[in-house]
């Protein structure tokens, strides 16, 4: 009996260890990982120096783990085991009810108060401008009731209240409106962004605040049914349904062009549909993240809007483009020129600061508003 068992043990071990080692050698190396959004370590070149300094060993280990065969299968398996253990989160994402993946938000964020100060500094420096701030709470607050048992989440409402009190400029609290519509599809289930519908509601609230007429005559088109977003690739629960993406096309005949800072290319229309064939579908909206994006519409009303933003603004912009002939979007994470000079060169009717609450409280680049004159 024992003989057979021992042979089986040895056999299984040898096949597993040697099998995977050989599979790894045969499997071709990849240069980038679309899923992880980064370059993968390649086979390092050996040299006595690099070995003695320890850097060869380190790079080789990185190489092996980066290029490991069937990586996503292993990662998915681990996620499954975590859920088997009744663990309700993986890599910073809660597995919530109804297929919602909610990003953990457990503390205020180092830069929250500092960024509020930066906005106040901006207010002092540009006293003649009309400006507004919107901080969008994240899905984990709206869908608290779907969270796993006892799962803690930080009180984002308190943060919004602090923002309202501390900011000199106008602040729009969008939580009540979003909360009213939370049973609708206003946040993606597998991505950390809000949906076009969520942005649409806030657009209407913003127009009311600015005493402008919101454009409401749209045809809603479903452009993607297989959207797996950022949270999906962190949580790695591969048994979930994908998200759908919608765009709102105005019935009126309006033309749009989008350009960005290098100006060599331009986009006809508001959406770069090529992104729908890739993993990062959300970048379809106004061609994703750039330091400076300029959206021009054929509605010649001479109105100009400046938005300091993170990616939450991308699906809000198509609505705003019906009310402003020009929208300039600056992403302070990548924009390194003097934003004040840029504003002085143009005449903006409104300035909008639009951020998700999580980005706003953890990003340090807004301090540029303090350092520039």
């Amino acid at each position: 009996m024992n003989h057979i068992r021992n042979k089986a043990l040895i056999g299984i071990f040898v096949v597993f260890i040697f099998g995977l080692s050989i599979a790894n050698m045969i499997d071709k190396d990849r240069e980038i990982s679309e899923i992880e959004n980064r370059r993968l370590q390649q086979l390092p070149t050996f040299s006595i120096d690099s070995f003695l300094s320890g850097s060869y060993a380190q790079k080789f280990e990185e190489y092996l783990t980066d290029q490991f065969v069937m990586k996503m299968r292993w990662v998915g398996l681990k996620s499954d085991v975590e859920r088997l253990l009744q663990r309700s989160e993986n890599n910073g994402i809660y597995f919530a009810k109804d297929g919602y993946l909610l990003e953990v938000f457990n503390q205020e964020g180092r830069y929250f108060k500092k960024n509020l100060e930066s906005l106040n500094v901006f207010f002092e420096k540009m006293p003649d401008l009309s400006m507004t701030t919107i901080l969008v709470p994240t899905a984990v607050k709206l869908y608290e009731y779907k969270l796993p048992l006892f799962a803690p989440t930080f009180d984002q409402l308190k943060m919004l209240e602090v923002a309202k009190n501390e900011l000199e400029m106008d602040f729009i609290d969008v939580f009540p409106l979003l909360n009213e519509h939370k049973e609708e599809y206003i946040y993606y289930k597998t991505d950390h962004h809000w949906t076009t519908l969520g942005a649409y509601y806030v657009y209407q609230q913003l127009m009311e605040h600015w005493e402008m007429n919101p454009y409401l005559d749209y045809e809603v088109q479903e452009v993607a049914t297989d959207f797996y977003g950022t949270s999906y690739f962190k949580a790695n629960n591969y048994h979930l349904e994908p998200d759908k993406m919608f765009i709102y096309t105005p019935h009126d005949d309006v033309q749009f062009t989008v350009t960005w800072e290098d100006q060599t290319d331009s986009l006809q229309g508001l959406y770069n549909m090529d992104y729908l064939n890739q993993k990062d579908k959300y970048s379809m909206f106004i061609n994703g993240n750039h330091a400076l994006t300029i959206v021009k519409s054929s509605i010649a009303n001479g109105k100009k809007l400046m938005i300091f933003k993170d990616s939450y603004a991308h699906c809000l912009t198509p609505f705003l483009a019906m009310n402003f002939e020009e929208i300039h979007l600056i992403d302070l994470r990548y924009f390194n020129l003097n934003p004040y000079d840029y504003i002085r060169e143009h005449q903006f009717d409104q300035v909008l600061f639009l951020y998700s609450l999580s980005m706003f409280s953890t990003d340090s680049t807004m301090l540029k508003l303090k350092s520039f004159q």
Partner: protein
Amino acid sequence: MVFSSLVFLFAFLPLILFLYFITPMRWRNLTLLIGSLFFYAWGEPSYIVLMLFSIVIDYTHGLLVERYSGDRKKAKLVVTSSVVINLALLIFFKYSKFIITSFNKLFSANLTIPTIALPIGISFYTFQTMSYTIDVFKKVAPAQRNIINLGTYVTMFPQLIAGPIVRYQTIARQLNHRKETQDRLAEGILRFTIGLGKKVLLANNIGLLWNKILSTDASNFTVVMSWLGLIAFGFQIYFDFSGYSDMAIGLGKVFGFDFLENFNYPYLSKSITEFWRHWHISLGIWFRDYVYIPLGGNRKGRLRTYLNLFIVWFLTGLWHGASWNFILWGLYFGMIISLEKAFLLSWLNKLPFFIRHIYTLILIIISWGLFAFDSLIDLKAYFKVMFGLEEIALCNQTTLYYFTSNGILLIILVLASTPVMKVIHQKLSLWKCYLVIEVFMTPLICLIILILSTAYLVDSSYNPFLYFRF
């Protein structure tokens, strides 16, 4: 290199196994030696010279001791020389920073604090090489004439980095002749796999809870959480260390060596004295045989016994790390053991099992508090919370969340700390049909552990970014 890594499992291990088993018998020690040197150099290229130096020193000293076996005084001199050199190495590389910092604090001096990188495994291999010369002196084992064999003993990669501390006498014979049988091979593989599972699936996982608790915002911290934290840490360190020992023992077996057990269900102990006979056994034995007994043990009167205990536990604590909290940790145990020896054990023996067990567990949990914090300030703060001396809630939602999201894992950990699986296996083995099932079940379980461990190891390197990194 660590055993629980993809590069070890899927690059080094298959390679060394292949090379070892195609090498003819008499060259196998050399293969193992070269492989082990490579293993060490991979993680620590510059300090390999140090280890080679240690081997040469002890090779020559071993031969000299044997040469002077007639002249006790001369032989003793040689042994002393070996011990002094090895300790000097250890103290210089591991403790100089600690000694100078403490000296500065104590005497308000301002000596420059040296920054010396700690060579991996030095605490283990210096102890092993010392044990070699001492064992030859005590005539428990003959001197090793073949420097390659001695080198193999010292550098053998299964126990090089994290023990168990293998005394020369344990494997002296096997160095020269050993049999790698199929039974041994299978046993070693099973042992290794269990150790891998303990480390990757259990220790690393509960370690995440400990890290989470440590980084929990002060406003969210509770008394219950602080105890849960140390329980998590206690499980982490047990499964990490015993898992690593299992892997070492398993690998040793694969290459034909029988190391001694290093852990024996320590968390079942009913007294601290018993605990230290089941925890890090090889270290306990080393200090007993090479420090406690030579100092006289308990044969020189009561006062001397307590002094000897003090010294042994001071050193045991110090061995674990160059920091005052480790010394405190060692002395903490020394004190309890002395008390148990004096009268506590006889009291305890009259109490029911259950109470003795709880008594031991509580003392152990507290000891992990001493072990976990390098900084005495942090240590004090943590203990204040634990014993309700801070204005802090008893429990809260976050604490409950930590329990529910780790509940099943904790149950598994508790079960795995007991021999319940072994006992069930033994009882069931009386049935013939179980034996048939077991033939398939054990290899299957082994495979599952391998697959899951690989999944967790791959995932730990999975590192997605929000936007593309150029």
